[in-house]
């Protein structure tokens, strides 16, 4: 299995968890997307250091772009790289953030329901006002 294949599978799994299993529905909330855009900016920045300085090196056979074994110089953009990093890293990061936040919201909701079981409607309403 390639990094590309695993990234796609991870994305499918976390989307299913967010929408249907944990039903946190972060993908439908503008707060999530705004937070993700902020995270994405810092991912591009920090991962550019890690991949541009070749702290982390990738094997070309398992990514869409070229691996460190196939490149003399890592391009900032091009050869399947975005800010030096393989494009798969963006999916890896998105999946990790979505799963972590989905778990955070799910655990918070469970806690609110345990404190006041009949107030789950209010919890949903409070979340809707922040959309």
């Amino acid at each position, binding site marked *: 299995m390639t990094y590309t294949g695993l990234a796609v599978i991870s994305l499918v799994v976390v989307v299913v968890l967010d929408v249907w299993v944990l039903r946190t529905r972060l993908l439908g909330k503008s707060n999530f997307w705004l*937070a993700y855009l*902020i*995270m994405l900016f810092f991912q591009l920045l920090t991962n550019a*250091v*890690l991949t541009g300085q*070749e702290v982390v090196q990738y094997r070309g056979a398992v990514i869409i772009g070229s691996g460190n074994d196939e490149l003399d110089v890592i391009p900032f953009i091009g050869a399947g790289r975005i800010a030096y990093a393989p494009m798969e890293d963006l999916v890896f990061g998105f*999946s*990790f953030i979505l799963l972590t936040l989905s778990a955070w919201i799910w*655990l*918070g909701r469970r806690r609110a329901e345990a404190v006041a079981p009949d107030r789950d409607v209010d919890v949903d309403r409070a979340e809707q006002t922040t959309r």
Partner: protein
Amino acid sequence: MTYAGVLLFIVLGSVWLEFVFKLGVFRQWKRLLGALLIGITPFIVWDLWAVRADHWSFDPAQVAAFRLPGELPLEEFLFFPIVGLAGILTYEGVTKVRSHFQSRSS
């Protein structure tokens, strides 16, 4: 120590949100640990597997000499709780700031 520097930057860039916006994320430490555990576990497993399968590797000169089981550098392991926490603080920060402005305008 390039990787350690990157981690320090992420910590400094995110933890202030808790105190400036009074997010109360650390006060809910059980919920925080639970969310991090759920979020981190599958990605650590993926990372360990990927290193074994030679999907990616780390430059020994730019990470700490200390290795966790599975040959993961210490920094690579710390990456997950640090970035997971940064994500939660960012989401809670965005939620707090936006609800503040929405309640003022209505």
